[in-house]
Structures are given as structure tokens and as C-alpha cells.
């Protein structure tokens, strides 16, 4: 269990660590690392490994929006049923059921504002159970997946000290 937690912590920190590096850092055999990761994947606990991209550093428009969704349920339709329909769209990057004033918090990504707007009004809003959408376009991003997007602090320590 300890090795498993340590591996998860390491992969969440940097999913590009090689097996050899993970073994060194977690003090495990390479074989044990491979086995544990395979087990975590088979259990569905490890769902993927993705890069954290700061699009503003690239000359590329990437539009993202947080969308609040309100829905009505009936005897035949659960939150899960509605979610199943929404997550199928590749434009949707995250969908969470939340507490508070609305039901779902949805994140959407596209190449332009018109594309994202069109997707929400033409694909999401018409879903019969959805009663209201409120769209917030992301204007700037300062931290994603635990990674700060600033320039970082410079190491201003003395190069050699007691």
C-alpha cells in the first residue's frame, strides 16, 4: 500500500518519470513498479497521463469556458443518464456534479469563441433535461492541475553554504 501511494504521488507530480526513475525514487524494483501501475490501470484508478499546457505561451488561440448547467430530473432520468450524453462530446473536457445553485459544472474547450458558443447553444442547451446554461469564458489561467503558470521564484540561495 505504501509503494502504491508513493507511486501515485510520483505520477501525479510527473507522469513522465521512467520506470527506472520511479523505482529509484520509490525504493522499489522496476518489476514491482510495472506491476503496481498495471494493477492501478486495470482497476480504473489510473485513468490517464496528460500534459499541462499553458496555451498563452503558444501563438495559438485556445478558448475555454466553464459552463453552469441546470437540469430537471424525472423518474426515468438520473444525473448519470444526462451526464452520459454530455461527456460523449469531445469538446467537453470535464464534467462534475456539484452542490449549490446549479447541478453540473462543465468545462469546454475549442479553437474559437464562436465554436465554443455554437457548441453550447446547438449541442448542449437543446438537451431536453437541461433547463439553463450560464457560460463563463476563461480570460487567463494562473494555475492548472497544481502547476503555477507564473515565472516561478528564482533560486537566490548562496551557491555554497554551511
Amino acid at each position, binding site marked *: 500500500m505504501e509503494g502504491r501511494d508513493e507511486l501515485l504521488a510520483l505520477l501525479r507530480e510527473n507522469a513522465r518519470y521512467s520506470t527506472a526513475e520511479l523505482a529509484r*525514487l520509490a*525504493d522499489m524494483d522496476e518489476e514491482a513498479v510495472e506491476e503496481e501501475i498495471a494493477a492501478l490501470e486495470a482497476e480504473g484508478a489510473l485513468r490517464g497521463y496528460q500534459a499541462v499546457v499553458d496555451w498563452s505561451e503558444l501563438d495559438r488561440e485556445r478558448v475555454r469556458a466553464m459552463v453552469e448547467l441546470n437540469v430537471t430530473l424525472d423518474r426515468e432520468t438520473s444525473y448519470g443518464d444526462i451526464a452520459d450524453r454530455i461527456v460523449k462530446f469531445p469538446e467537453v473536457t470535464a464534467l462534475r456534479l456539484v452542490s449549490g445553485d446549479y447541478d453540473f459544472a462543465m468545462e469546454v474547450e475549442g479553437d474559437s469563441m464562436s465554436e465554443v458558443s455554437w457548441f453550447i447553444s446547438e449541442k448542449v442547451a437543446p438537451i431536453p433535461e437541461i433547463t439553463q446554461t450560464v457560460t463563463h469564458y476563461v480570460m487567463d489561467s494562473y494555475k492548472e492541475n497544481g502547476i503555477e503558470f507564473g515565472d516561478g*521564484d528564482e533560486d537566490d540561495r*548562496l551557491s555554497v*553554504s*554551511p
Partner: protein
Amino acid sequence: MTIEPSARAEAVPPSGIRRFFELAEQQEEVISLGVGEPDFSAPWSAREAAIASLEQGKTSYTANRGKLELREAIADHVAAHHDLAYDSDEEILITTGVSEAIDLALRAIVDPGDTVAVAQPAYISYVPGAIFAGGEPLPVVTRPEDEFTLTPEVLTESGARDADVLVMNYPNNPTGATMTREQLEPVAEFAREHDLTVLSDEVYAQLSYEHEHTSIATLPGMRERTIVFNGFSKAYAMTGLRLGYALGPAGVIEAMNRIHQYTMLSAPTTPQYAAIEAIESCDDEVAEMRDQYNRRRRFVLSRFEELGLDCFPASGAFYAFPESPWDDSDAFAEALLEEEGVAVVPGDVFGEGGEGHLRVSYATGLGELKEAMARLESFLS
């Protein structure tokens, strides 16, 4: 006229660390494994508490002994973490870094001619501190075959039975050695038998990776003859805020406070606010930093093994202490710096017993550690 330095100042040579600092500064693209402080910054909530205290105009002196609220927080903290019971009114003194606390302790208990046994290799302040206090330093050289732990054998061999004071530092800078309760027991027995006062610098207490840290003051009959030092520099990454503390019997803390009130008055105020917050709410951050150091420790030790570099499994602080591939560790460290741009500190800087070894600090990001090990590999081949 020229101002002549006193004999006391002249008695102590400049630190050997300085030379390596200057060499490293002259070079470009240096990866430094020579740094004796964390690469993290203090937890944000601690920094914010310091900022808030400034916004509220808290810029006056505190009590000589430090803010009572901080002393109370320290009393609770050391009781919970290290099984140490000290009274916040009489037995705790907040100082400007652990360095000040050690200087105060030596000046408060050492009379001219007293022998101060110093377990070495060790942090560079103890021997000069003993000299400034008028004492005679006596090196007690720990051995690689004991993984640099302090043993009754080396104490006996060095003549420490006639000493008045013993200074020790575990988890240790520069070796990364730690001592278990079982290993401390015979040292405690030696101290009781030969009536030694023990100054135990435990500033790395929260960075022990293989076992829980044990303070020697918790061993039978040791509390009354021990002064424990700890601070916020290492575990909370607050080196520059200069805040430490001493724990000891009321009498000696009173004597230390007497010197402190005339020389320092009180430890700086702003860091005391940061420290209260650090103790009260930053356990998770400390644990996270400890996990990071531990990963790097494993990485460095496993790379040393691969490179055939002889190194005992350092288990504390953020240092490894491999044997220098060349007999002359100074020459090796200098060549490694010049040819590969990797700075390490030769062991002889840390007193007797350090020669022939290198202090490698892993308080550096993993990416840099990887690159440094690759450069070391190319240098060795």
C-alpha cells in the same frame, strides 16, 4: 592607526566553505549540491502570517525570551512530536537562529579552560563557538564504519571523559547520519557517568527518514544535563528568517537569557509570527517537503551505488556523505567544479574525520540532481 583584531577573533580561521563559495561563483552553469538550506520557500500560510503582522504594525520588540504564544506553541509541538516536556515560561528561549542559541549556551556554561568535546564531522559553528566562549575544543571523531554515529568508543578514545561539555548534532550536517534511541543510550550513559553537559543540536529532527527522531534529552537522567536546540530553518524552510530556540532546565535558560537580553534583546518579531503559524498549521507542508527530500535521497544513494561511489545510507537532514574517489577530497571537489560545473563541499571543511569525504546536498530539484549525477558519472569515467 589600524584596528587590530583581538586574539580571540584571530584564534579562529575563516570557514573553508568560503573558498568553495568563491570558486562556484566564478563559474557559469554550476549545479550546486553545496547548499546547506532547503530549496523550498517557507509555507505560504507562514509567510502570509508574517505579512499580516507587518500590516498590523507589529514591529516592536517581543519579550526577551520570545513571544509567549510562540513558546507555548513550541512546548506543545515538542511534546507531541518528540516527547519533550518543557515549561513555556522558564525552560524555552527563542533566539535568532539556532546559531545564536548555541553561542549563548556555550557562553552561559563554559568557563575559561573548560573542555568542550565536539562530535565531528559537524556543522561549522561549534568549535569556533567553544573558542569564543573561552573553552578548549576537543574533537571527537566519528567513524565511517559506525556510519558516523557517536559511540562510547570514540568518546573514550578522544578523552571526552574529562570534558565538561559535549556538543552533538543528529540528524547530522554534513553526514546525514541519524541516531536511534538504542544508539543514543550508551552515549547518554557516558554523559551521566562522566558528568558531561550535552548540547544537542536537533535542527534536522523533522527530517529523519528511517526512524522517528529521538532526542537524547528524553533518555533517563538526561533532561537535567541537556540543552536541546531546534528551529524553523530546516523543517519549515525559513533559514533567512533566523529563528531558533533552546530547551533546557530553568537555570541554564535563565543564564542564556541574561546574555541574550544584553546582546540580542529579543529575536526578530516578524519571523515569530510566521513561526506560530508554521507550527500551528503547516504539518502537511513539512510532510510534503520531507517526502520530496526522501525521494531525492533514495535517488542520490542509488545513483552513487551505480557509480561505485562508496556511501553509507544517510538517513537524515538533506545530505549524503560519500567517500571521495580521490584521497584528497579538496582536490576532487575543485576538479569536479572546474570540469563539470558541479559544486559539492569537501568533508574536511566540517572538521576532523571529514577528510576523504564529500558533502552532497540533495536540497535541489530532481531535474538538477539528475543532471548533476550525469555530470558526475562523466567525470568519473
